[in-house]
C-alpha cells in the first residue's frame, strides 16, 4: 500500500520539487552571491545584494508597491461585495449568464485588455474628452502614465478574481438569515454588515489573497500604463535581470518579495486552512 502511494505521489511531487522548490532555493542561494560587471555570478558568499536594498532608492518603490497593492485590494473587495451579493440573489439562470460574462474577458489575453485601456485613456480618447467637457481635467493633462492609471488598470484586471470567490461563497449563503435579522429589527445595512459579511468571510479571505498577492508582484501593468514615477517592485526585479544583469541583486529583491507575500499567506492560512479550493472557485 505504502509503495503505491509513493508511486502515485512521485510524478507531481518530483516535478514540483525539481522545477519549483529547487528554483526557489536557487534564487535564495544566488541572492547571497557576488556579481561581476558582465553579468556573471562570483562564487563567494556576501550580503552585498541585501545591503544594496538598504539604499534609500528602494523605499519609494516598496512604499508604492504596498500602497498600490492595498488600494487595489480594497477597491476590488468593496466593489466585489455588492456585486456578488446581487449575483447570488438573481434567479439561477441569470446567475449563470452573469458568471459567464465575468469569465469570458479572462480568456482574451490580459495584455490585450491592458492595451484597451491605453486606447481609452489616450489624450484624444473618449474618456479624456468626456472628462474635459465636464471640466474635470485640463485639456493638456495626461490620464495615462500616472499612478492613477496603474491603479485603474490593476483594479480592472483583478476585479473578476475578487468577484468569483466572493460569489461562490455568497451563493452558498442562506439569505433567509438576512430576512431573519430584519425581522428581529436590524436595518438593511446592519443585516448585511452583521450577517452577510461574517457569513462569507472565507470568500473574503480568498478574494483578498487572489488580488493582493499577484498585485504585489505585478510588473507589466506599471510598465505599459505607468509613467516615470510608477515603478513597482516587479519592475525593479526585471530591471536587475534585464538591464543591470545583476542576478544576485535580482535574487535579493525576489527574496524580499517572497517575505512580503509570506506574511499575508500565513495570516490567511491561520484564518482558513484550505483557502486553495476557493482560489480555483
Amino acid at each position, binding site marked *: 500500500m505504502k509503495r503505491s*502511494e509513493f508511486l502515485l*505521489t512521485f*510524478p*507531481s*511531487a518530483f*516535478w*514540483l*520539487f525539481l*522545477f*519549483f522548490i*529547487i*528554483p*526557489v532555493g*536557487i*534564487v535564495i542561494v*544566488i541572492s547571497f552571491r557576488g556579481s561581476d560587471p558582465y553579468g556573471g555570478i562570483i562564487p563567494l558568499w556576501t550580503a552585498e545584494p541585501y545591503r544594496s536594498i538598504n539604499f534609500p532608492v528602494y523605499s519609494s518603490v516598496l512604499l508604492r508597491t504596498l500602497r498600490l497593492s492595498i488600494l487595489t485590494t480594497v477597491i476590488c473587495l468593496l*466593489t466585489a461585495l*455588492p*456585486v456578488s*451579493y*446581487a449575483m447570488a*440573489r438573481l434567479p439561477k439562470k441569470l446567475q449563470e449568464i*452573469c458568471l*459567464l460574462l*465575468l469569465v*469570458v474577458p*479572462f*480568456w*482574451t*489575453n*490580459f*495584455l*490585450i*485588455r*491592458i*492595451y*484597451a485601456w*491605453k*486606447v481609452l485613456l*489616450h489624450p*484624444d*480618447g*473618449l474618456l479624456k474628452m468626456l472628462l474635459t467637457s465636464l471640466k474635470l481635467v485640463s485639456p493638456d493633462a495626461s490620464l495615462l502614465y500616472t499612478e492613477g492609471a496603474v491603479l485603474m488598470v490593476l483594479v*480592472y484586471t483583478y476585479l473578476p478574481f475578487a468577484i468569483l470567490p466572493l460569489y461562490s461563497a455568497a451563493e452558498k449563503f442562506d439569505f433567509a438569515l438576512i430576512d431573519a435579522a430584519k425581522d428581529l429589527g436590524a436595518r438593511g445595512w446592519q443585516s448585511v454588515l452583521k450577517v452577510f459579511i461574517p457569513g462569507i468571510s472565507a470568500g473574503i479571505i480568498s478574494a483578498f*489573497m487572489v488580488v493582493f498577492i499577484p498585485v*504585489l*508582484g505585478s510588473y*507589466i501593468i506599471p510598465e*505599459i500604463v505607468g509613467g516615470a514615477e510608477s515603478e513597482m517592485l516587479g519592475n525593479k*526585479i*526585471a530591471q536587475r535581470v534585464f538591464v543591470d544583469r545583476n542576478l544576485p541583486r*535580482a*535574487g535579493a529583491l*525576489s527574496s524580499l*518579495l*517572497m517575505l512580503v*507575500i509570506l506574511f499575508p499567506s500565513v495570516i490567511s492560512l491561520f484564518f482558513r486552512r484550505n483557502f*486553495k*479550493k476557493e482560489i*480555483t472557485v
Partner: protein
Amino acid sequence: MKTGRYIFPRIMLVTTLLFIYMPLLILMINSFNGSRFSTVWGGFSLKWYVKLFHDRNIRRALVNTVIVAASSVAVSTVLGTLAGVVLVRYKSVLQKIHHIFITLPLIVPDILMGISLLLFFIAAGFRLSLGTIIIGHITFSISYVAATVQARFQDFDFSVVEAAQDLGADNFRVFYKIYIPLLSPGIISGAMLALTLSLDDFVITFFTAGPGSSTLPIQIYSMIRFGTPPVINALSTIFICITFMIVLIYQRSKRSLYR
C-alpha cells in the same frame, strides 16, 4: 417593494459589467476603423484583418502557442489529476509535504516563478527554448488542476469505492473505472483552467523563452510596444469571438456531462 432593497447591489453589478466590457468594445469597433488613429473614424475597413493574416511572425507565434498549450495541458492534467486524487485518498506525512508543494505555486506571483525558473535553467545549463517554456507552464498548471480535482471530491461518494473494493476491484481498476469517470468534470475544468493559464501567460514565458520561441502573448507584447496597434485590435476581436465560442461549447458540453 422587495426588489427596491437590492437596487444598490444591482446597479453595482451592471456598472461592473459595463466597466469590464467597455474597453473590449472599443477595441472591437476600432478593429474595423479605416484610420490608423483610434480617435478618428476613417470609415469601415477590413484592412487590419488582411494585414494580420499576412503577418509571418503572428503565424509562427500562433503555432508556438498551440504547441506549448497542448503539451503543457496534456502533462499537467495527468500529473495534476494524480496529485488531486492522491492528496484526498491518503493521509500521511508524505501527503502533507505534497500538499505544501502543490499549494505554494498558487500563492507565488508570476514574476518570482519566472525569475526562479530562469535562474534554475541557467544553473542547470538548460538551453532556453520552447521546451523550457513548456516546463514552466506545466509547473504552474499542475497545482491548479490538482486543486480543481480536489474540489470535485467535495461531492464525491466514497461508498462507491468501498463497494467496488468489496467486490474485488484492485486499486488500479478503482482509479481507472471509478475515480476517472466520476472526476471527469473536475478533470475537464482543470484542463480548461490549465489551457486558459497557458494561453494567457506572459511573464513566465517572457523569462523562459529562447530563440524563435515567441508565443502569442509575447508577440502581442512586442506589437503593443513597437508594432501597428490596429492589427492588435483585429487580433483581439478574433480572440474575443473565439473565446465566446469556446465558452459556449464548453458550457454545452458541461451541461451534457452533468446529465
